[in-house]
């Protein structure tokens, strides 16, 4: 990213933002509540973009995407959705960037994706607990974690495959 001009960076961020929001919308519409799933469990497709942005431009880029998603949630789905998105998003992004800084080849995006998903859920549960005042919600935690593993692995695998190609494309841009 360092070698890009300002214009190129702006364009790239534009694309990434659009993708993040698009994926968010897609997964909300395409996947109705499966009765099995606890309410609030998501596939987290937009996390692919967050992880990608974090790899390319660190914390500042990733947090920008996270805040954008939160704002989008506020505009389209209301304050609660916004809080849910931000609480999970910020925690998840913070962990994501921490791992990227510390990790030297020990984890591929799969491991990172799973951890992101877990912390996203944790952040959301904490927010839900504060809002509703019910500790009982933690009962969902065990179910959410399992889905975190599955979805994190899925998004991680996607990025594992895509990342080299994206980096190659950016280098030759």
């Amino acid at each position, binding site marked *: 990213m360092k070698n890009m001009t300002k214009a190129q960076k702006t364009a790239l961020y534009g694309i990434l933002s659009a993708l993040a929001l698009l994926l968010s919308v897609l997964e909300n519409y395409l996947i109705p509540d499966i009765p099995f799933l606890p309410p609030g469990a998501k596939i987290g497709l937009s996390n692919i973009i967050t992880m990608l942005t974090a790899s390319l431009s660190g914390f500042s880029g990733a947090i920008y995407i996270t805040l954008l998603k939160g704002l989008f949630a506020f505009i389209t789905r209301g304050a609660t959705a916004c809080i849910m998105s931000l609480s999970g998003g910020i925690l998840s992004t913070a962990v994501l960037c921490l791992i990227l800084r510390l990790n030297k080849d020990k984890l591929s995006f799969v491991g990172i994706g799973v951890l992101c998903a877990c912390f996203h859920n944790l952040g959301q549960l904490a927010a839900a607990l504060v809002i509703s005042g019910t500790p009982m919600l933690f009962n969902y*935690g065990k179910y959410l974690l*399992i889905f975190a593993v599955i979805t994190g692995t899925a998004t991680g695998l996607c990025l594992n495959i895509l990342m080299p190609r994206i980096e190659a494309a950016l280098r030759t841009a």
Partner: protein
Amino acid sequence: MKKGDYYVIVSVLALCVLLFIPSFLPSGEKTAEVYVDGERVKTVCLTSLKTEERFEAAGCEILFEKDGASFIKSDCPDQLCVKCKKLKMNGDSMACVPNRVVVTVRAEKENNYDIVAY
């Protein structure tokens, strides 16, 4: 995928298993129910059994013990019910299909009472 990924996945799953354990802990009374043709014909409170109890219904013999219930004899040809291990956990069920006998084990709700006086 790298080695570290496996560690992450396994640890998260292990955490899940830990979280699920409480639902398997004995929670008060365990009861066994026997249904023949869809009708409940016997209810036994397993946890308050002092000795084992046997019960016969529609060609099957069922054994009730403090920790669970099992089919010990049946006149059915496939003997699947008898081969099945003892039913111990809440929700465990086994049926002797030819004889239309079903045995279910239930653990009662968290509430250790039948009704509240107020």
